[in-house]
């Protein structure tokens, strides 16, 4: 699999809080392939953002600490490489977009300045060249009248336009990987669709690899090549978009999909997953989803399920699917 561009191996991230150690990410592994859009899905607090921040080692430490694992990009382990090397990768090779466009731009500089900053830093462009390139980037992400607006300040932009500026800044050095941490959550639906179009174009035209983080299965459906479903700091299911949407195997994934409103199905109520996510200070001993699972086995409470291959590269961490259990005829319907 030479196509792999980013490899996360057995990542463990803990937060040391006053109440105890929060195991926010507990031994997760996944690969990202060149030119694919990989969606990291899960509800709030399941560790999606922590994974994303760990890739660029952006976690605030303390309280966060990466306890183990590897994140391989090119020839480097991003978790261990020296700070200078990491700074060259950040923004230049791997760029990141954040959730809240209100606060991710510096209020005291013009947007043009902020896009140009990366160009000056990584590509060593002069001020004039950098500003010209910024202008082109602003046009590329669909900011109307970019030439007039390049010297405006962030507060003069709407939320959607600000997110476009953020995307332009992230794209400025033509990174290989774009990490987008819930980039559409703070936007309204029409703007969201426009922003998703930009991501789609990027993937198609620049063959950019995009790690897209969201809690919204609806957004994922039209965009993802592959999906990683996280729950309680662990990856519970990984597979192509088709695998996940057509053959959801883990009970949690099925629960998530049941929460989606559907046009075709005649249903007057959405089915929520009962219960709430467990405290990650004292996670359940076995499967993290066990307390909320509809089809748990006695084994689930005590033994942590290993990842098993369901089909092709569709993997699931669930005892129901483990060969020993399946053999006994407990295969979930």
């Amino acid at each position, binding site marked *: 699999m030479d196509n792999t561009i980013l490899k996360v191996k057995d990542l463990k991230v803990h937060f040391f809080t006053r109440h105890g150690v929060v195991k926010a990410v507990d031994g997760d592994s996944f690969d990202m392939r060149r030119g694919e859009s990989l969606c990291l899905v899960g509800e709030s607090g399941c560790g999606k953002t922590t994974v994303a921040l760990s890739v660029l080692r952006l976690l605030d430490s303390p309280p966060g600490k990466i306890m183990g694992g590897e994140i391989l990009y090119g020839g480097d382990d991003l978790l261990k490489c020296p700070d200078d090397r990491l*700074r060259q990768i*950040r923004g230049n090779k791997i760029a990141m977009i954040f959730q809240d466009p209100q606060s991710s731009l510096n209020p005291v500089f013009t947007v043009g300045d902020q896009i140009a*900053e*990366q160009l000056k830093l990584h590509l060593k462009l002069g*001020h004039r060249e950098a500003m010209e390139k910024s202008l082109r980037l602003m046009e590329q992400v669909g900011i109307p009248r970019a030439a007039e607006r390049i010297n405006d300040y962030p507060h003069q932009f709407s939320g959607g336009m600000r997110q476009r500026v953020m995307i332009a800044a992230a794209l400025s050095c033509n990174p290989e990987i774009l990490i987008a941490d819930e980039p559409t959550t703070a936007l309204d639906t029409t703007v969201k669709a426009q922003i998703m179009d930009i991501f789609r174009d990027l993937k198609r035209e620049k063959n950019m690899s995009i790690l897209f983080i969201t809690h919204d299965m609806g957004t994922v459906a039209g965009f993802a090549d592959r999906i990683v479903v996280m729950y309680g700091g662990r990856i519970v299911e990984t597979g192509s978009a088709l695998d996940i949407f057509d053959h959801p195997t883990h009970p949690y994934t099925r629960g998530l999909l049941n929460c989606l409103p559907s046009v075709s199905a005649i249903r007057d109520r959405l089915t929520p997953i009962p219960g709430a996510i467990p405290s990650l200070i004292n996670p359940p001993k076995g499967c993290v989803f066990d307390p909320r699972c509809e089809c748990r086995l006695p084994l689930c409470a005590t033994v942590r399920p290993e990842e098993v291959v369901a089909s092709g590269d569709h993997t699931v961490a669930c005892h129901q699917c483990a060969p020993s259990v399946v053999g006994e005829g407990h295969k979930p319907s």
Partner: protein
Amino acid sequence: MLTKIGNKVGGLRNLLFLCALMLLALVLVLDIYAVDRILEPLGYFYIVFALLAIFYGIYPLYLSRRLTRYYWDRTKRHRLAVFGLVFIFFLVAVAIAGPFLTQDPTKVRFQEKNVPPVGFSITQSVYDVKTDTFSTVHIPGTWRHALGTDDKGRDMLAMLVSGARVSLQVGLLATLIAILIGTVLGVLSAYLGGWVDNALMRFTDVMMTFPFFLLLVFIIFIFGPSLTFVILAIGLTGWTGTARLVRSEALSLRTREFVMASRSLGASDSRIVFRHLIPNVLSSVIVITTLSIPGVILAESALSFIGLGDPTVTSWGVVLNAGQRTLDTAWWVAVEPGVMLFLTVLAFNFLGDGIRDAFDPRSQV
């Protein structure tokens, strides 16, 4: 080529500023070895101050005229702030041009002592040597000494003008030193966190609990009462409040997403401090600057009042001190510098209030 180097230090403007500073340093080196002084020690402070004001004050204000207009309109709504600004401009003009127009503030004329200001007159008993008698003399104010003279016949107007110069020098320069130290320490403390933060803040606490005036007296006792040391002493002790305030602001800025975003795009620590933290705390720094100038001016006056100021310069504190000895015969000697001090302090306070309101987003209507 020039822009390439400029990029390294964060812009052409910084580069030019650094060049100017280096030039100044060169002059300083020459000054140390040269026989004749090129510049007074205080001259260096002024030039640094002027450079800072031009590069980081006037030029950016000119660049973003729209914002300048906006904040000026908001400040203008505060009537008293405008009064303050006008008074400060008047004071600056007097301090710069006045000494060339008035008489020598140190010239003693005993035959003209205790002349009241124009429009006032006093009766005084004068001892006549020839007849060995006391006679009562009626002394009217004259235009020659519009604000009167003190008990040594020195011209009050000249002394007040000289005092204005001293007060502004000390007020601006000492505040500048204090604010620079406070801002840098505050931002560093907040950004680095951990034991650095702890060490710096405990040091600030110690500085704060130390009796400020005693420390000043100490420094001046050790280094001698020259105006330069008075400025340094006030500047080096007055940064604590600024450091704390800037730290608290920077602490909240540090966790804002744009800092994380900038880091995710490859910015280094120094870039984050200079481009993201410092520019964002500047609005509060400007407000504390204007609000702390009056305190500094009062501190200088207090020092010279108790006789710890520079004995070679005539500051308002010195005149006040002279005046309080003759309060019963020549009230104006004490009242005039007092009024000036009062008005100056008030003007800076009003201006500070106006600027604070202009910068406060909550007062946005």
